[in-house]
C-alpha cells in the first residue's frame, strides 16, 4: 500500500511532539525542525514525482474501505500544493533560525510551527470533507497561538479579529458539512461527488454550495469577507507573517477549488458566476486598499487579498486553461508573496521599522537586497519573463477565450496598480535617501540565514518564469484532473467509482 501520502502529515506531527519532549532545549528543537523540514521537502518531491508518473494516489486510513473510512488522496493539485508547502516550510524554518527571538522560541514556536504545517498538509491531502474541517481546525488553532505568541498589544488586537472571524467561518463550515451529510449521507468527497448529482432537492445543493463559499471565502479572504486579513497579518514576527501570507490563505482557496470542482457542479452557471465576480471584486478592492498603505507588511497584506482574487477568478472561468493557470498562479504567488514578506523583515532588521516613510536608501546601502526585492515585486506585478507574467497571461488568455472582457480588463488594470504600489515600496524604501532620524542598525550575525531563503525564492520566481514549461505542464495536468473528477473518484472508490 501507499504510505507515502501519510508522511507529509505524520512527519510534522512527530517532529512537533518531539520538540515538546525537548521543550527546554531550544537548540535541539531547532535542529529537529530543520531536519524535519528537509525530509518533508524530499517526501513532497517524491510524492509529486509519483503522482506525475503514476496518476492519482489514494490510501484508506486504517484499511477502512471508502466511503466509510477516511481517505487520503493526492491528485496533481494536492501534490503540487504539498511540494510548494515543502519549499516554503524549509525556507521559513531557515529564516526563523535567524530572526525568531529567544522568548518566542522558548515558548513553543517550533512545536506550533510543525503542527501548523501538519494542518496545512492534512487539508491538502484529505479526501473527506469532515476531515478537511478537522485539518482546518488544526491549522487554525496553531495559527491563533502563533499570531498571539509574544503578547504584544498590536498582536493581540490583530489576533482577536483573526480568531473571531475564523471561528465564524468554522461554524459556517461545520453547519454546511452537517447539512451535506444529512442530505447525501456521505462525507467522502469522491462519494459525495457521485451522490450530489441525483439529490432530490437541487435547490438545496446550491444553497449549500453558497454556504461553503461563505465559509471558505472568509478563510481565504474573498470580497467582502477579507477585512480581517490586513488587520492581523502584519502584527506577528516576519517569519510568521510570511507563512501566513504565503501559505495559509491559499489553503482556503485550495478548499474552495476542491469543493467547486468536485462537489458542486450541478448549477455551475449560477455558483461559478458568483465566484467569478467575487474574484473580480476581490482583485480590485485588494489592490485599491494597498494603494493607501504606508506600512510595508500591511501593504503586502492587501496585495494578498488582491492576488486571491486572481485565483478565485480562475476558478470562476472554469475552463481547463483557467484552472491550470490558477494552479500555476497559486504556486507562483506563494513563493513570491512569502519572499516579499521576508524582504520586509530584512528592512526591519536594518532600520528597525516597517514604516515606508521612515525607510529609505536601502538600494544604495545594499544593492543586492534591492535587486532581490525587485525580482519578487516585478514578478508579483507580472512583468515578463518572471513567474507572475505567465500565471497572469494564462488566466487572461482563458478569460478572453470565454469572452469575459470586463474581468480581463479588470485583471489587467489590477496588474498595473500592483506595479504602481510595488514601485511605491521601491521608491520609498529603496530609492529615496534615508530620512533623518531613522536608526541604522548593524545587520548583526546570521544575515546569511535571512538572505539564503530570499535568494532561493527569488531564483524560483525567475526559474518559474524563464523555464515555465515543465511547471506549467504540471499545472495543466492538475487542471485537467480537476475538471474531470472521474479519475479522482476512481482512485478513491476503486472500480465501483466507474459505475
Amino acid at each position, binding site marked *: *500500500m*501507499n*504510505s507515502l501520502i*501519510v508522511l507529509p502529515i*505524520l512527519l510534522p*506531527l*512527530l517532529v*512537533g*511532539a*518531539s*520538540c*515538546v*519532549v525537548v*521543550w527546554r532545549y531550544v537548540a535541539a528543537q531547532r535542529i529537529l525542525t530543520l531536519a524535519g523540514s528537509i525530509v518533508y521537502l524530499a517526501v513532497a518531491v517524491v510524492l509529486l514525482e509519483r503522482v506525475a508518473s503514476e496518476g492519482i494516489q489514494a*490510501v*484508506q*486510513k*486504517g*484499511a477502512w474501505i471508502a466511503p466509510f473510512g477516511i481517505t*487520503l488522496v493526492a491528485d496533481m493539485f494536492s501534490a503540487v500544493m504539498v511540494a510548494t508547502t515543502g519549499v516554503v516550510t524549509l525556507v521559513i524554518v531557515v529564516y526563523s533560525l535567524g530572526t525568531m527571538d529567544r522568548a518566542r522560541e522558548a515558548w513553543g514556536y517550533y512545536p506550533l510551527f510543525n503542527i501548523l504545517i501538519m494542518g496545512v498538509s492534512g487539508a491538502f491531502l484529505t479526501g473527506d470533507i469532515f476531515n478537511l474541517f478537522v485539518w482546518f481546525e488544526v491549522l487554525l488553532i496553531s495559527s491563533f497561538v502563533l499570531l498571539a505568541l509574544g503578547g504584544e498589544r498590536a498582536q493581540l488586537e490583530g489576533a482577536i479579529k483573526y480568531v473571531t472571524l475564523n471561528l465564524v467561518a468554522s461554524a459556517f463550515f461545520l453547519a454546511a458539512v452537517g447539512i451535506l451529510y444529512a442530505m447525501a449521507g456521505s462525507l467522502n468527497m469522491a462519494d459525495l461527488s457521485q451522490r450530489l448529482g441525483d439529490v432530490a432537492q437541487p435547490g438545496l445543493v446550491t444553497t449549500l454550495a453558497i454556504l461553503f463559499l461563505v465559509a471558505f471565502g472568509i478563510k481565504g479572504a474573498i470580497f467582502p469577507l477579507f477585512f480581517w486579513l490586513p488587520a492581523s497579518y502584519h502584527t506577528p514576527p516576519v517569519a510568521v507573517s510570511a507563512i501566513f501570507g504565503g501559505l495559509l490563505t491559499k489553503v482556503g482557496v485550495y478548499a474552495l477549488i476542491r469543493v467547486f470542482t468536485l462537489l458542486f457542479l450541478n448549477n455551475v452557471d449560477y455558483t461559478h458566476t458568483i465566484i467569478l465576480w467575487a474574484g473580480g471584486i476581490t482583485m480590485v478592492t485588494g489592490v485599491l486598499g494597498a494603494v493607501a498603505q504606508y506600512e510595508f507588511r500591511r501593504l503586502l497584506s492587501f496585495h494578498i487579498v488582491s492576488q486571491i482574487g486572481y485565483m478565485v477568478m480562475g476558478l470562476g472561468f472554469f475552463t481547463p486553461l483557467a484552472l491550470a493557470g490558477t494552479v500555476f498562479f497559486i504556486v507562483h504567488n506563494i513563493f513570491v508573496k512569502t519572499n516579499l514578506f521576508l524582504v520586509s523583515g530584512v528592512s526591519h532588521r536594518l532600520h528597525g521599522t516597517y514604516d515606508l516613510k521612515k525607510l529609505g536608501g536601502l538600494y544604495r546601502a545594499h544593492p543586492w537586497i534591492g535587486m532581490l526585492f525587485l525580482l519578487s515585486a516585478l514578478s508579483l506585478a507580472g512583468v515578463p519573463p518572471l513567474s507572475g507574467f505567465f500565471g497572469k497571461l494564462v488566466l487572461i488568455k482563458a478569460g478572453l477565450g470565454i469572452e469575459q472582457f470586463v474581468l480581463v480588463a479588470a485583471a489587467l488594470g489590477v496588474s498595473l496598480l500592483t506595479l504602481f504600489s510595488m514601485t511605491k515600496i521601491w521608491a520609498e524604501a529603496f530609492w529615496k535617501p534615508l530620512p533623518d532620524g531613522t536608526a541604522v542598525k548593524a545587520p548583526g550575525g546570521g544575515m546569511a540565514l535571512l538572505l539564503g531563503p530570499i535568494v532561493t525564492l527569488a531564483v524560483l520566481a525567475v526559474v518559474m518564469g524563464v523555464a515555465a514549461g515543465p511547471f506549467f505542464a504540471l499545472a495543466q495536468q492538475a487542471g485537467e484532473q480537476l475538471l474531470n473528477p472521474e479519475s479522482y473518484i476512481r482512485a478513491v472508490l476503486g472500480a465501483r467509482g466507474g459505475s
Partner: protein
Amino acid sequence: MNSLILRTASRFLLILLFQFSIFLLLRGHNDPGGGFVGGLVLAAALTLYAIAYDVRSMRRFLPCRAQTIIAWGLLAAALSGVWSMFKGQPFMTGQWAHVYILGLDLHLGTPLLFDIGVYLTVVGVVLIVIMSLAEEVEEDD
C-alpha cells in the same frame, strides 16, 4: 480550600479514581469508555486533589511537566498508526496479537496504544488548563 473532610476524602478518591480511569481506558476496547473519558476522570481526580490542597502538592504526582505528558501521548498515538506501515498496510490499520500471561488470554493491539496516547494527551491538556487558571488565582490570594 481548608476542609479536613475534603482533604481526607480526596486522598482516597484520588487512588480510587485513578483505578477507575485505568478501568475506563481498558474497557473502552469493546464497551463504552476509552482513553478520552479515562483521561478526563484522572484529570478530574487530580483537580479535586488540587482544590483540597493546592496545585503545588498536586504537581508532585506528575512524573514530568504536563507539556511532556501531551508530547508522549501524541507520540504514542502516532506510533500506533505507524506500526502497520512497517508491515506494508495502510496507516493506522489495527495490529493484533494474543498474549498469554498468568493463564489469561489477552488480545492486545495498536488501538490500545492509540487509546493510551489519547489518555495521556487528555490528562496533559486538562491539567495545563487547570493549572494555569488555578495558579493565577493562587497568585492573586
